[in-house]
């Protein structure tokens, strides 16, 4: 039980990462894939694909950035609690 309690914040990060991943994928599939520029022909198709790729890429990078941010905060909090209350070894 103690081990589970100690891991709660990391599990929380994992939960957030999971939820955000599903959200980003759903947004890409529902909205980004349907984005179309009013340009016809081969150039239009190429630009549409490039635009969709860039937006999807930005969303995924944002997701990774939030993930790293959450992890760093989690680690700093854990390090602080280690410094403040040196615990006995399990």
């Amino acid at each position, binding site marked *: 039980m103690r*081990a589970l309690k100690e891991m709660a914040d990391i599990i929380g990060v994992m939960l957030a990462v999971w939820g955000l*991943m*599903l959200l980003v994928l*759903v947004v890409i599939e529902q909205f980004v894939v349907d984005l179309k520029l009013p340009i016809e022909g081969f150039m239009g198709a190429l630009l549409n694909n490039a635009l969709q790729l860039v937006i999807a890429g930005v969303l995924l990078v944002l997701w990774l950035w939030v993930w790293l941010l959450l992890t760093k905060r989690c680690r700093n909090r854990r390090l602080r609690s280690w410094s403040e209350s040196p615990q006995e*070894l*399990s």
Partner: protein
Amino acid sequence: MLLLKAAAAFVSSLAASWLVTPKVIEYSRRKGYLGRDVHKPGQPLIPEMGGLSILVGVAVGSVICCLLALNVEPWIVVFTCCTMIAGGIGALDYLVTLTGVTKTALTVIACLPLIVGAVLWPKHIVIGRPELPFIGTMRFTIIYWILLPFAVAAPANAVNMIDTFNGVMPITSSFSVLGLLVASLILGRWEALLMCCILLGALLGYMPYNLYPSKVFTSDVGSLAVGAAIGVIAVVGRLEIVGIVALMPQIMNSFYILSSVKGLLERRQIRERPTVVLGDNVVAANRSERAPLTLANLILSRGPLKEPELVKRYAILSFSSFILSVVTAVLMVVT
């Protein structure tokens, strides 16, 4: 019949890897394939190449599946070939010592049977139609084929990167495979179910020898093969998203390493270790700014732990990702 096949595949691969591991230990000791257990007092030499028994387990389970079906199914050929190639790359790395980039690039080759299988047997191996909760089948087409080589290489390297403490690889991988197994049951992906049974049996048969205190190390032979096998199960079973969720601890670990080391480096190329050994099996996080961030470093950032306690925390995290993967599969059914 399917359940009988699944049970037979599970039991045969479990028995094979369990029976073969002592022979592999003996063989590794004779050949001098030994590695230091740096977390133990006195840093004893432990036989490596334990992953060979996982390969034997997978091979035996696959053969039993074929014998029971009286047919060689395309998915089983693809599954076995990908696993064996990844294991071969692991063995090559152990014997020749490859750089991080070369090894990662080579693991992409392990995807070839999957691509060839999809081209030769398009009715049996349907790929390129990943499914997502709330949406259903996604419309990724060209990008899916571009990313396909990484569907095997990424899990292979992620599983390899997490294999740093006694028992961590088989425990975390077993939970991942269990997640895929339950998801394939929920979604009715029967080929994936059989592949999961084969791999889970091989992992569980090997696990007792790798748990603390390890009698044998898996080495890249086993970890790359297990990761590649998980990748193939996810792709062939169209369980890509479930696979990502089931592999969350491994992916977290790789992401932290890649973001802090900023490149594909081998363990021996990283100067500062993410953890430090305090003696008597006690491991602590390296608090240096230059130390790479890893899952072990994150777990230990709350204070030092004995190795079995650290491994228990890995198991808790893997169990959580197992629950999440099942929830993802349920969401795929109900939405």
